[in-house]
C-alpha cells in the first residue's frame, strides 16, 4: 500500500521540502467538521510533521518527543498528537478509506519521534486501482488496466491445454451445420424436379425419402457426438479449475480466507466452476453450431438472391436493439429475485437451526408471520420476473421473425410471375427459419457470456492472489533446536487494530514458557505468529536465527505441534485423526502417542478401539476425550516446538496432572509455549510471560513474579481467593 503519495511541485514548494525528504505522505479526506475535502495531506519528514490543506501548510510540528496515534472511531478515524508536556489534540480526520494508511503513518511517525530511523512499510494491497479507480479484490494488478484482452487471454489460458479437443469439437459442429444445410437443397430439387411439373414417379419419391432419412440420421449422430463431446470438455475444464482453486485456497494465508465469508469461497469453488461448465456445455456448443449454421444460411441465401437475404434479416437489428436494451432490466429482475430467494433461505436456516430458542420463548406464531411475509415477497418477485420474461422474449423473437412476411410477400409475387420456382421459395423460407432460430438463441447469449465472464473473474480473483502475504513461504529448512526470538514484533489482524505491540522475547531451546494475561490481550495471536499462520507487520520473528518468513512452510509445520482450545477432529477413525500430520506413523508410535496423551485407556474401552469412527467434529466424544486425541496428534509429530493453547482446560485435574507429567518428558527435547487461564497448569513453566494491553508486561519465573507483586501476583491471589470462596 502506498504510504508516500506524490505531491505537486507547488505543494512541495509551499512546504519548503523536496520529494526526497518525505518519509510518509498520506491524504486525508475530512475537514474538522466532517465535510469531504480533497488535495489535503499529512506529510512526515525525518524531523517534522506537516498538515496541508489546498496545497497550503496548516500545521508544522517538530516530531521529537511527540506521541502520535491513529484512533479508530465509528466510520471515521483521527490522527491524534501530543507534544511534549502538552495534551492530546486532533490533527486531522479521515474516512475509513484512509484509516489503514494513517495507522501505518502513525506508527512510522512515532518511531521517528523516538529517534528510531526505521521505515514502516505496508505489505497490504491497494484496495482501489490507483489508475482507473476500480476496486481490486485482493489482487495487485488491476484486471481492467492490464488490458481489455485480459478476459479473453484468461479464457485462452484456460482452454489452451484442450486445444486439440476444441478443434475436433469445432470440426464436428461444422459437419453438423453443413449436413443441416444440405436438407433444403434436396427439398428444392425434389419439389421443382419431381412434384411441380409432375415428372417424377414412385422411385424418385422413394429415393428422396431415403436421402432425407439418411441426412436426418447423420444430423442426429453429429449433434449427439458434438453435444457429448462438449459436455465432456466442459466438465473436464471445470474439474481442472476446481482442483486448482482448492489447491490455491489451501496455500493461501489464513488472513485472506478469514476475510471472506466461507459461503463466498465455497460458491467460487462449486458455483463458478459450474457456470464455466454450463457455458461450455450449453452456450458454447449450441451457440457455435447455430452461429455457423446461420452464417452459412445467409451466405447460401445471398448466392440464390441477395435481396431475399436482406429481406430475411432486415428486422434483426431492431430485435437485437430491444434485446440489449432489455438486458439490464432483465438482469435486475434476476438480481431482485436472487435477493428475495437469499432472504427467504437465510431466514429459514436461521429459524430452523434456532428452533429450540423459538419454542422455549413461544415465538412460533410471530416467526411464522414473518416467514409468510417473506414468502409473499418472493412469490411476487417470481411472478413479476416471469411475466416480464414471458412478454419480452416472445416479442423479441417476433420482431426478428418479421422478415418472413416480407419474404413470403415478395417471393410469392415472384413465383406467380414465374421468375422463381416454388421449390426455391420453399428453400429460401427454410433458410430464413435457420437464421431466426439461432438469432433468438443469440439474444440470450450476452447474458450467458457475462455470467461466465464474471465467474472467470471471480475465480481468477483467487488464483491470481500472490501468496506472499502469509509467513513461511521461503525454502530454507534449518535444523531447529527450539530457539525462538521475537524482536520488535508488531501485529494486528487489521493493520489499524494492533493486537501485539513491540514484543521482544528470547526463548532458549527446551524452555517452557507460560503465557498469562486477560482474554483478548494477544496470547493466542502470539502463538498464531509462531505457527506461521500470519506474517508480522513489522519486526522479526526468528527460529534458530532464521526469519520465519524464509522457512519452508511444510517443513515448519512438521516441527511444530499444536493443541488448541477448540479441538477440530476430522471425520474418520481415531487412528486417522492421531496420525493426521504423519500418515506413515507406525501403529506402535500411534499407541505411544495416545498413551502419552492419557488417551490410550479410554480408546481401549471403546468397542472398535482405535478404529472407532468419529463423526462430524468428533461429535460423539466428550470435550476431554477430544482434547486428549488432539494432544496425541501433536505429540506424534515429535515436535521441536509444542504449542498448548488451553490444551488441558477440559480435563479433570487428575488427567491434567498425568498429561503434564508425560509432556514434561517430551518437553526435555522441545520448546513449549502454553496458555492457560488455570494458573496452576503453568506452575512448572520455566518462565511466565504476562501480556497486558497488547504488550509484554512481566517476564520471570513464578517465584520472581510473585515477589515483584505486579499483575501476575494479582492474578494468582485473585484465583487463590476465588477458589477459597468456592470451597
Amino acid at each position, binding site marked *: 500500500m502506498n504510504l508516500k503519495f506524490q505531491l505537486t511541485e507547488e505543494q512541495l514548494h509551499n512546504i519548503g521540502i523536496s520529494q526526497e525528504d518525505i518519509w510518509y505522505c498520506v491524504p486525508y479526506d475530512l475537514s474538522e467538521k466532517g465535510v469531504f475535502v480533497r488535495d489535503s495531506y499529512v506529510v512526515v519528514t525525518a524531523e517534522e510533521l506537516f498538515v496541508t490543506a489546498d496545497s497550503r501548510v496548516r500545521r508544522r510540528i517538530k516530531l521529537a518527543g511527540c506521541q502520535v*496515534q491513529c484512533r479508530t472511531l*465509528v*466510520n471515521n478515524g483521527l490522527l491524534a498528537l501530543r507534544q511534549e508536556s502538552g495534551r492530546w489534540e*486532533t490533527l486531522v480526520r479521515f474516512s475509513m478509506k484512509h484509516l489503514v494508511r494513517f495507522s501505518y503513518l502513525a*506508527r512510522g511517525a512515532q518511531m521517528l519521534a523516538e529517534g528510531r530511523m526505521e521505515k514502516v512499510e505496508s505489505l497490504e494491497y491497494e484496495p482501489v486501482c490507483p489508475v482507473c479507480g476500480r476496486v481490486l479484490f485482493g489482487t495487485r494488478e488491476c484486471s481492467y488496466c492490464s488490458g481489455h484482452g485480459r478476459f479473453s487471454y484468461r479464457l485462452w489460458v484456460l482452454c489452451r491445454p484442450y486445444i486439440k479437443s476444441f478443434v475436433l469439437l469445432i470440426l464436428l459442429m461444422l459437419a453438423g451445420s453443413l449436413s443441416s444445410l444440405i436438407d433444403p437443397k434436396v427439398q428444392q430439387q425434389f419439389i421443382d424436379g419431381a412434384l411441380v411439373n409432375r415428372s417424377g414417379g414412385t422411385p424418385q419419391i422413394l429415393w428422396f425419402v431415403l436421402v432425407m432419412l439418411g441426412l436426418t440420421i447423420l444430423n442426429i449422430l453429429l449433434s449427439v457426438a458434438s453435444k457429448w463431446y462438449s459436455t465432456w470438455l466442459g466438465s473436464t475444464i471445470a474439474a481442472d479449475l476446481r482442483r486448482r482453486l482448492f489447491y490455491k485456497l489451501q496455500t493461501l494465508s489464513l488472513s485472506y480466507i478469514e476475510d471472506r465469508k466461507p459461503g463466498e469461497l465455497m460458491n467460487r469453488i462449486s458455483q463458478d466452476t459450474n457456470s464455466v461448465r454450463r457455458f461450455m456445455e450449453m452456450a458454447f456448443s449450441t451457440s457455435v453450431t447455430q452461429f455457423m449454421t446461420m452464417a452459412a444460411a445467409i451466405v447460401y441465401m445471398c448466392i440464390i438472391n441477395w435481396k431475399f437475404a436482406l429481406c430475411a434479416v432486415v428486422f434483426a437489428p431492431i430485435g437485437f436493439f430491444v434485446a440489449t436494451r432489455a438486458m439490464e432490466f432483465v438482469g435486475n429482475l434476476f438480481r431482485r429475485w436472487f435477493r428475495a430467494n437469499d432472504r427467504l433461505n437465510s431466514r429459514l436456516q436461521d429459524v430452523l437451526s434456532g428452533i429450540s430458542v423459538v419454542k422455549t420463548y413461544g415465538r412460533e406464531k410471530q416467526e411464522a408471520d414473518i416467514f409468510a411475509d417473506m414468502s409473499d415477497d418472493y412469490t411476487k418477485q417470481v411472478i413479476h420476473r416471469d411475466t416480464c420474461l414471458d412478454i419480452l422474449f416472445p416479442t423479441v423473437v417476433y420482431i426478428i421473425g418479421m422478415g418472413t412476411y416480407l419474404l413470403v410477400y415478395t417471393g410469392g409475387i415472384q413465383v406467380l410471375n414465374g421468375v422463381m420456382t416454388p421449390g426455391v421459395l420453399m428453400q429460401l423460407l427454410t433458410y430464413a427459419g435457420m437464421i431466426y432460430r439461432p438469432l433468438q438463441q443469440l439474444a440470450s447469449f450476452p447474458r450467458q457470456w457475462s455470467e461466465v465472464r464474471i465467474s472467470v473473474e471471480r475465480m481468477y480473483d483467487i488464483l491470481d492472489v500472490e501468496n506472499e502475504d502469509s509467513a513461511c513461504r521461503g525454502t530454507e529448512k534449518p535444523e531447529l533446536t527450539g530457539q525462538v526470538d521475537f524482536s520488535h514484533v508488531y501485529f494486528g489482524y487489521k493493520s489499524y487494530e494492533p493486537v501485539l505491540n513491540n514484543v521482544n522475547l528470547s526463548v532458549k531451546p527446551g524452555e517452557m514458557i507460560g503465557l498469562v494475561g486477560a482474554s483478548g490481550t494477544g496470547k493466542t495471536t502470539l502463538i498464531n505468529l509462531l505457527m506461521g499462520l500470519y506474517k508480522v507487520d513489522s519486526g522479526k520473528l526468528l527460529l534458530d536465527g532464521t526469519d520465519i518468513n524464509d522457512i519452508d512452510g511444510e517443513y515448519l509445520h512438521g516441527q511444530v505441534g499444536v493443541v488448541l482450545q477448540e479441538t477440530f477432529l476430522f471425520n474418520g477413525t481415531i487412528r486417522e485423526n492421531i496420525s493426521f500430520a504423519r500418515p506413515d506413523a507406525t501403529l506402535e508410535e500411534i499407541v505411544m502417542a495416545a498413551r502419552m496423551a492419557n488417551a490410550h485407556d479410554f480408546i481401549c474401552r471403546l468397542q472398535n478401539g482405535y478404529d472407532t469412527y468419529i463423526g462430524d467434529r468428533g461429535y460423539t466424544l466428550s470435550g476431554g476425550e477430544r482434547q486428549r486425541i488432539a494432544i496425541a496428534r501433536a505429540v506424534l509429530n515429535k515436535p521441536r516446538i509444542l504449542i498448548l493453547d488451553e490444551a488441558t482446560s477440559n480435563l479433570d485435574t487428575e488427567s491434567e496432572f498425568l498429561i503434564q507429567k508425560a509432556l514434561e518428558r517430551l518437553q526435555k527435547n522441545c520448546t513449549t509455549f502454553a496458555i492457560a487461564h488455570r494458573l496452576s497448569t503453568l506452575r512448572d513453566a520455566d518462565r511466565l510471560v504476562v501480556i497486558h494491553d*497488547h*504488550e509484554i508486561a512481566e517476564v520471570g519465573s513464578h517465584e520472581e513474579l510473585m515477589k515483584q507483586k505486579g499483575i501476575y*501476583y*494479582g492474578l494468582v491471589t485473585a484465583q487463590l481467593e476465588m477458589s477459597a*470462596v468456592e470451597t
Partner: protein
Amino acid sequence: MAPGMGGSPPGRRRPGDFVPQRNEEPAGELDLEKLEQQSRDMMELHMLNRDNAEFRENSGGFLDLSYNGRVYEDVQVVRMFPFSRPDEYLSVRESGDQAAEIGVIENLPRDFDGPGEEAVRHQLALRYFLPAIRKIYNVRQEMGCVYFDVETDYGRCQFAFRSNSNAVTRISESRVMIQDLDNNCFEIPDIRKLTAGEQKKLDVYLT
C-alpha cells in the same frame, strides 16, 4: 493500548495517557474486594446530569468530565442505540481499550444544556461519522462491483461495494444503511424522499 497504534512505548506512560487508570494501581491484595465492587457496579447505572456532572471541552478538542469530585480527562461518549436513540442513553467511558464506564446520560437535551451539552455533541459528531445521502447522481455496475456517486450532507463523494454483498440494508421501513468496501457507512434517512429513478437504482441492491 490505546484504540490506535504507535502509542507510547512501555514505561513512558504519563497521567492522562490512553491507559485505563485502574491498571496503574498496583494489582494486589484488594483484588477480591475490587471484583466484588465491580460486580456490584455491573448492576448499577450512574446517571449523569447537570447537577452532578460537568463536561468541558479541553484545549486539545477532547472532552473532560468532573463527576463526584473527580476529574476524568479525555473521556469517550458512546451511543448505546446509535440508530434508534442517538441522543439518549449515552455511555460515558474512561479513555482506553478496556475503559470502564463512568456513567450514563439518559437524555442529553433534557439532562444537560449550554456549553456542556455543546461539548458532548461535538464529541459525538467527531466519533460518529454518518453522512446522509441526499441525491444519487450515478450508479454504475462493473465486474461484480457497484460504484455510487452521491451528494451527502457532508459534500459529494463516491464509494463502491460488491454487488453480491449485503451492503445495503433496511433498518426500518424507510431508513436504509449502506456500507462500502472500506467500511464507511452512509445513511438514507427516508428512502421515500428520493426520486423514483433513484429509488429504483437502489432497490436492486436492497436486502
